[in-house]
């Protein structure tokens, strides 16, 4: 791909990602927020692909925009919030406080990037290529798998403990004791009997 088109794609993806993530936090209805989050994930995956991280880009699309967001939408629809359940529109002071904090973090980060010698060094290499030249296997499944199971083996194994802890926690917090369950079901039974009568 020629660098001009690459920059064009990057510009579009960056604008879409920024605008849609702004919309995620400003919408009151969670369904809209979730929808814009999908758009944001898609835009980020485009940026990943432009960086030659093809595998990561596809994973972003499949796992985040696909699987996880569908789960989000299911949860939101199961809860089915009505107008009254939605949080109150926050006041001007709260909004300006949040905006102030966000601005502070933004200026800190942009200061860091604009004053960085490393960034300057990289950009002094000229606009073409935007990123350092990478080998052909970069970002492929094979390269990714080799990194994962050789260099980062320990972390990979630790991640399995992380997931296990997550499962145990979810099971504990979501489970209701046997006693609770029996009273709940008997309560439901009574309800049925009453409606029959």
């Amino acid at each position, binding site marked *: 791909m020629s660098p001009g088109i690459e920059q064009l794609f990057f510009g579009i993806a960056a604008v879409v990602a920024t605008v849609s993530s702004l919309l995620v936090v400003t919408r009151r209805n969670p369904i809209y927020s979730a929808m814009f989050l999908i758009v944001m994930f898609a835009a980020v995956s485009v940026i990943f692909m432009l960086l030659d991280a093809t595998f990561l880009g596809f994973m972003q699309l499949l796992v985040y925009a696909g699987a996880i967001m569908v789960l989000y939408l299911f949860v939101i629809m199961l809860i089915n919030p009505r107008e009254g359940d939605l949080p109150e529109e926050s006041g001007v002071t709260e909004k300006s406080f949040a905006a102030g904090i966000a601005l502070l973090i933004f200026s800190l980060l942009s*200061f*860091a990037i604009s004053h960085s010698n490393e960034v300057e060094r990289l950009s002094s290499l000229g606009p073409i290529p935007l990123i350092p030249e990478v080998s052909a296997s970069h970002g492929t499944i094979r390269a990714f798998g080799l990194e994962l199971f050789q260099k980062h083996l*320990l972390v990979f194994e630790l991640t399995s403990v992380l997931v296990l802890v997550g499962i*145990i926690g979810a*099971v504990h917090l979501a489970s209701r004791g046997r006693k609770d369950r029996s009273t709940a079901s008997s309560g439901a039974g009574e309800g049925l009997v009453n409606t029959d009568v």
Partner: protein
Amino acid sequence: MELTISGAEILAILPAGILVVTGLAQLFADLGRSAEDKHSEKTHLAMIGVTGFLLAFAALFVQGSEASAGELYAGAMTDDLFGRMGAGVVIMTGLFSTLMAGSYLASRGSNSAEFTALISFGAGSMALLCQATNLISIFVAIETLSLAVYVMAGYFKDEQAASEGAFKYFVLGAFSSGFLLLGMAFIYGATGGSVSLTDIAASNGQQDTLFSVGTLLVLIGFAFKVGAVPFHSWVPDVYQGAPVVAVGWMAVAVKASSLFCLCRFLLFTGGGHDLAQLLAAISVVTMLLGNLAALNQQSLKRMMAYSGIAHTGYLLIPLVIALSGDGPSAAASIPFYMFAYAATTLAAFGVLAAISVGSDRDQIHDLDGLAKNRPLLALGFTVALLSLAGIPLTAGFIGKLLILSDAIQHGFLLLALVGIIASLISVYFYLRPVVSMWFREPKSSFELVSSSWGLTFTVAVCGFATVCFGLFPDWLIDLSKRSVEAILG
């Protein structure tokens, strides 16, 4: 390329591995038990836990050399005395927390294997965190231990205070993890794509603004985990809602492992521009605010929460000194202080667990007349409180002495002065429960957790250790000094 794992790598991972297996064993041992069992003490869980923790502790001694074993698992972790001391604090804390958990949870009617298993899994990842030497393994270990602690904070899921505390902790914790990760990404960018601490130390990107902001963000992430001001707001709420035993566990183990990791991180990377001044400011505010806010608390758990915040402030002083160019030797008080703090805090929370029958009783007047009914518990609690206040003959005194004399020696007079003033303030609120235990009459008949051998044992051993570290500190101080010297190989 072939996958090879050396003997040193297996030895390094042994403690953490044993702890994870222990957690699994506890889960399996509790399979198929009926729900009514939740009122029983389940001694088998404690037995598995104690065996596992003792084995893991023994595994720390398997390898003799103190110096860093170099990069293991392609730089993900190392094996040195410093890391092993951190793991030692965590493992001992886990051992006593497991001992206390059974009778306490049974008295609350919610004893299940999840709790002890989460302690074991958490301890495994904390042990790894103390030895982690690259940004990725640090992050994953922190996330694993945080997840375990979030669940433990909300363990009493039917209680509103517990759910509120756990939810706050979870949301703020996720937020701080974001900062941590962003900071790591900045460091990665500034140092030309290195994740290993050794590579970061060797790279020339440390003068870069990217690097400074990166370390600042990483510091924010850690400050949240150890509860330093201004990232402390979750601490009192979580301490109040969580099970007492879980509070004791997280107060010591999370703080210890995060501080060991932060210490290693800062010693390796040297921090960015002006990080020492910033850290000094955080330390001063944390010491003052923690102690001042604790003055007015009627709830013992909230008092311990603010006391924990204040102790974080003291623990940041050695890091400030080390960052200001006086080298790693100034950080030597951290391992000693953590051992002292662990013994002291566990003794205190053992007593708090023992008085929480049926519901968590944690008002100071709940302790009235404890000395007449249970002199051993009262004695243990008194020793713990004196040690937290820094009264001589206790471990807490030696810890503070090390930190403050280091600060004075290296010319950080303001820090030392604030530390001394803060300690003086703290004597007032630490002595209130002591007065209530020894000089007041009980209002009604005293009720304690019925079969509390685990609790009594913990209070006795930890109280004894507090005095021992206070009377004979030399060997531990020596060990701490050697461990810090061993960090950089």
